[in-house]
C-alpha cells in the first residue's frame, strides 16, 4: 500500500501582487473565474493551479507567467530591487 502522493509546490507571488494592487481575494477570484477560497489556497501553496488558471492570473496582472509562478522559491522583491540577487 503506497502513501499519499505529494505534489511539488508551485511558488507564486499572488499575495504580493494582490497587496500591491489593493485587491481582495474575492475581486481577484471574480476576475479569473475562481472561488475566493481557491485564491487563499494558492497563496498558501496548498493548491497548484492548472495552466489555464495560472495564465488567467498572469494575464490579469499583465505579467508573464514566470513572474507570477515558479517551481523554485522567488527571491525577496527587496533583494531584486537593490540588486542583491538575480530574479
Amino acid at each position, binding site marked *: 500500500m503506497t502513501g499519499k502522493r505529494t505534489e511539488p509546490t508551485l511558488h507564486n507571488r499572488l*499575495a504580493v501582487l*494582490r*497587496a500591491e494592487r*489593493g*485587491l*481582495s*481575494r*474575492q475581486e481577484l*477570484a*471574480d*476576475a*479569473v*473565474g*475562481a*472561488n*475566493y*477560497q*481557491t485564491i*487563499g*489556497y494558492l497563496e*498558501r501553496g496548498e*493548491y497548484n*493551479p*492548472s495552466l*489555464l*488558471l495560472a495564465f*488567467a492570473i498572469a*494575464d490579469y496582472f499583465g505579467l508573464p507567467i514566470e513572474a507570477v509562478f515558479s517551481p523554485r522559491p522567488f527571491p525577496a522583491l527587496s533583494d531584486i530591487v537593490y540588486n542583491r540577487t538575480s530574479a
Partner: protein
Amino acid sequence: MAGLRGVPGDRSTTDRGHEFSREGRRILVIFASLGVAATLYAAFGLEQGYVYMEGGIRGLIVGGLGIVTLVAWLFLYRFRASLAQAPDDRLDERQVQVRDRAYLQSFRIFVVLVVAGLALLGFLPQLAGHPVALSFDIVLPFLLGAILYALLLPSAVVAWTEPEPVPEPLGTVR
C-alpha cells in the same frame, strides 16, 4: 476567461457550507451517519431482533432518532448542495477536485459498509450458531441503509475533510 469553468463571480454561493466550523461539520456528520443506522435499527431491529419493544415506544424512539438524523442531514445538505452535489459549472477547478476526491472516498467507504452489512447478514449468525433464513423483512433495512448511505456519504466526506476556512488578513488589502 474562455476555457475556465463557469461564470466569474458566481462561486461565492457554492461555499455556504463554510458557515459551519470544521468541528461543527464533523459533529453533523457523526449525528447523521450514526442516526441513519440507529433509526433503521430502531425501526426494524427492535421489532424482530433479540430485543423486542412495544410498537408505541418503538415509534417514539424511531421518530426521535429520525428527526435528529433528518435535522443533521438537512444541515449537511447545505454543504452538499454547495459542493458535493454542485454541477461543474458552479465550481472552480479546485472545488471540482475536492468533489471528485470525495466521491472516490465515498465509494471506498460504501464498499466497506456493504461488505460489513453482508457479513452481518450472512456470516455472523452462522458463526454464532443462529442461522437466519433470509426474508425480505430482514434484507429491507440493509437495502434502505445502502440507499441512505449512498446519498449521504459524498456530502459527509466533503464536510469531514474540508479544512477550516482561513479568513483574509485584515488591513493588507482593501
